[in-house]
C-alpha cells in the first residue's frame, strides 16, 4: 500500500496535486481493516479520534515545510526531518490536552 501511494505520487502532475496523497495515512490504510476485524469498534473509534488530533499538527507541519522550501529554499531532508519532531511534540501535546 505504501509503495502504491509512492508510485501514484511520482506519476501525477502537477506536484501540488500529487501532494494530496501525501496526507493519506498509508499506515492507517494498511492496518485499518485489520483493526476493525480484530478489535472492537470502540477501539477503532478511539483510534480515529486520535488520528484527527494527529492530523491537525500535520496540517501545520506541511504548511511550515512548504513555506520553508518554497520561500527560503532550504534542503528538503533537513526541513522535513527537523520539522517532524516539532509536529510530533505538538500532536502529543494536543492529545494530552484534548483526549487524555
Amino acid at each position: 500500500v505504501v509503495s502504491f501511494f509512492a508510485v501514484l505520487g511520482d506519476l501525477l502532475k502537477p506536484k501540488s496535486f500529487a501532494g494530496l496523497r501525501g496526507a493519506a495515512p498509508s499506515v492507517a490504510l494498511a492496518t485499518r481493516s485489520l483493526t476493525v476485524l480484530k478489535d472492537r469498534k470502540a477501539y477503532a473509534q478511539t483510534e480515529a479520534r486520535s488520528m484527527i488530533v494527529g492530523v491537525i499538527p500535520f496540517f501545520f507541519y506541511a504548511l511550515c515545510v512548504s513555506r520553508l522550501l518554497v520561500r527560503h529554499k532550504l534542503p528538503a531532508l533537513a526541513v522535513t526531518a527537523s520539522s517532524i519532531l516539532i509536529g510530533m511534540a505538538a500532536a502529543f501535546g494536543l492529545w494530552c490536552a484534548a483526549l487524555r
Partner: protein
Amino acid sequence: MKISLDPSALGKTKWYEYALRFAFGGAITVAAGLIANKWGPGVGGLFLAFPAIFPASATLIEKHEKKNSNSLDGTVRGREAAGLDAAGAAIGSIGLIASLSPYGAYASSIDVAGDDLRYARLLITSVVIWLSTEDARGAQRASLPPSRASRTVSQRERYATMRFADSPLCLRALLNFSAHVPPFPPRVHALRPAPSRGPSSNRLP
C-alpha cells in the same frame, strides 16, 4: 491547471528508492502497532495519522526535479517542487479530517466495507479544496500585469539577482547625484553667521 499522468516517471525512479519508501512505511507501521499495543489506541492513533512516506517522498521529489532541470538553478527547482508537494499534503490533511470525523463521532459508522466510502470522501474533499485554491491562484495571476504574470519563479530570481548585481551602478549614480546637491540644506546656511569681511571690502570705490 491541467492534471496529467506521466508514465515515464516510473522509469526514472530507481528500485532502491521504492525500497526506501517501503522500508520507511513498514518501520512506521510496526512502530505504530507496537505503540498501540503498549499505550493503547489513543496514543497509537497519533502515529497512524503520521504520513509515513511524506519525508521520503519530499526528498526524492527534490532529487528528481533537480535532475530534470536543464537550467543552472536545478536545486531551487527541486526544492520548490518538494514545497508544492508539501502544500498539497496540507490540503490533503483537511480532507483526511473530513473523512475521519464521522468515525470519531459515531462508533456505529465504523465498518470494513465503509472504508471505501471514507477514502472517496477523503479524495473528494481534497480535490475540491485543491481546485478552489488553484482557481484563486489563477485569478490572482490574471489580475497581475502581463509582464509579472508571465514571469516564472526562476525568471523572478534572475531578475532579483540582476537588480542585486546592478547595485554598484546604483551606488555610483547616487554618489554622482549627491555631488550636485549642496552639502547642507539652505535653512542650515541661514542659521550660520555670515563670513566676516574686512571693512575695506564694503566700501564702494
